[in-house]
């Protein structure tokens, strides 16, 4: 069986992966880029290639920047495989990929993982009803095919994206009946410390614009207590219960949730990369050095999956990872790498200005902590808050134990929708810090694939019996 050989395998076609691939191919490295989606751009630049000219500006916030990156990408000699996922990597960088129903083996010199971010799950009662989705999902629908809700829409959550979406929806002509803001009291002293970085950043003027316009044009209710989504077979409304016992009800056909975003680290975890807890972002991220290299030699993490730094910083971290990969492959000398990387390193720092302020201002509300007993925590297996809490009380602090006792994390999403909540609950009930709970453990494959594909996979046993691993 022939094994494909490349200098660098890049996983993910968002700004980090695209930028890394462009840099690699520009310097003469044979590059393969695989991505689970059908079109390049990741989530932030989804649909930008096919988006109508007049519609592009409706998304604001640098959406059109993605178009230039993708143009450069299309012109670069890169082996680009869509609808392809990384199934596993062995210690010598032999990667198995799943492309169009077929498993293939790739020998890479270095690997850059750029799997981006996803929305922190927002477990409130009724969140599993059809018609309830994340703000990210709403933006994806709009970017993909100009799709918006046609009925009554209520937003429930906390975070900068609430205000960006409200602004975008005004541009699309989508009405928002209410924004229920779960953001807690702001810690002024912490905010003041980070304010100057924010003021000098690109987020300041745009962010202020979205926030101000949305607050004056939309009904905003602050809710620090119980919020529940109502409905039987689909979403019908939202009820907000205030401390004084009074409640407000909103009819809704669509409910959009948000409570910040998390690095998508399942693949990095399965590879064995060491994880760090980010205090400011309340999430796990891989430990990386200045070159974005993880604790696993020759494996890099670039973009939001290495920590939420935004789309612009992602481009630079992709470039930086590419340059060190090139040095490791001896295509560049250390000196050449340092010279070429200098402007990217400077820009990466600049692009991060203002993030600390945004993180502090919108620190996660972690709805699971105040969720009612019947609230579902594990969506795949339909496991409730009550059940998870009871098990944590019996056997505190052991995530793996909880998984085997409740099945939390055993469904197809592999813990993406439940482990952040389970970890937050464990920390709360056991009265420990989240980092003491530890990151969830992951194993290959991090995306489900049919057994038949594995059965048909020819790893050349007939040729080299007993010599699977050199």
């Amino acid at each position, binding site marked *: 069986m022939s094994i494909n050989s490349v200098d660098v395998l890049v996983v993910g076609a968002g700004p980090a992966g695209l930028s890394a691939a462009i840099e690699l191919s520009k310097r003469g490295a044979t590059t393969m880029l695989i991505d*689970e*989606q*059908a*079109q390049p751009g990741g*989530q932030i630049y989804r*649909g930008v290639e*096919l988006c*109508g000219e007049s*519609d592009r500006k409706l998304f604001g916030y640098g959406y059109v920047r993605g178009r230039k990156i993708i143009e450069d990408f299309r012109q670069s000699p890169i082996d680009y495989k869509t*609808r392809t996922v990384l199934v596993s990597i062995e210690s010598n960088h032999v990667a198995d990929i799943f492309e169009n129903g077929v498993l293939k083996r790739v020998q890479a010199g270095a690997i850059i993982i750029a799997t981006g971010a*996803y*929305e922190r799950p927002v477990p409130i009662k009724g969140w*599993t*009803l*059809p*018609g*309830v*989705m*994340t703000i*990210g*999902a709403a933006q*994806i*629908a*709009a970017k*993909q*095919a*100009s*799709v*918006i*809700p*046609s*009925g009554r829409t209520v937003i429930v959550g906390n975070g900068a994206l609430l205000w960006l979406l409200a602004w975008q929806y005004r541009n*699309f*002509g*989508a009405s928002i009946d209410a924004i229920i803001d779960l953001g807690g009291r702001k810690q002024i002293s912490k905010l003041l410390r980070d304010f100057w970085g924010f003021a000098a950043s690109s987020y300041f003027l745009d962010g202020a614009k979205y926030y101000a316009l949305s607050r004056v044009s939309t009904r905003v209710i602050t809710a620090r207590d119980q919020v529940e989504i109502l409905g039987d*077979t*689909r979403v019908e409304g939202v009820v907000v219960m205030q401390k004084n016992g009074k409640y407000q009800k909103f009819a809704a*056909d*669509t409910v959009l949730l948000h409570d910040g975003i998390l690095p*998508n680290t399942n693949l990095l975890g399965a590879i064995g990369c060491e994880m760090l807890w980010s205090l400011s972002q309340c999430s796990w991220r891989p430990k990386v050095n200045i070159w974005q290299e993880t604790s696993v030699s020759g494996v890099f993490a670039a973009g939001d999956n290495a920590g939420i730094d935004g789309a612009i910083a992602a481009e630079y971290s992709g470039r930086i990872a590419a340059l060190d990969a090139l040095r490791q492959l001896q295509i560049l000398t250390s000196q050449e790498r340092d010279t070429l990387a200098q402007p990217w390193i400077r820009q990466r720092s600049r692009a991060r200005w203002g993030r600390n302020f945004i993180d502090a201002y919108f620190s996660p509300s972690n709805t699971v902590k105040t969720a009612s007993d019947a609230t579902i925590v594990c*969506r*795949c*297996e*339909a*496991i409730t808050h009550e059940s998870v809490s009871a098990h944590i009380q019996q056997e505190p602090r052991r995530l793996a134990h909880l998984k085997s006792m409740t099945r939390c994390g055993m*469904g*197809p*999403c592999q813990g*993406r*929708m439940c482990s952040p909540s389970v970890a937050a609950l464990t920390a709360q009930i056991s009265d420990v810090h989240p980092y003491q709970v530890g990151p969830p453990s992951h194993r290959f494959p991090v995306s489900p694939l*049919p057994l*038949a594909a594995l059965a048909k996979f020819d790893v050349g046993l007939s040729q080299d019996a007993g010599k699977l691993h050199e």
Partner: protein
Amino acid sequence: MKNDTGTTATFKRFSPCNNTVTIFVNGREIVASGRDTVATCLLVAGELAFQYNKASGEPRGPYCMMGVCFECLVTIDGVPDLQACLVPVEPGMRIETQKGVLQGRDT
């Protein structure tokens, strides 16, 4: 906005689609956009529950729209448990919402 069965779809488009594609959703002929994923197309066609949870039997629909939640599972051209949000529409595609998840495959 009413679809063929007379029920009101919860989603619509803010820009007309220039490039249309004809597909079938639960036997109904639907005109989709060439830019649609199966998920966006189903939402505009008035489908909200794509499958029923294997543990609780409750109806579920798309939540993340990007491939991490595994709620948008549908059957496409006879192949079950495919994530609708990851699959672009193609002419003549036959899509069915489904009863459960991980129903198994013949091949």
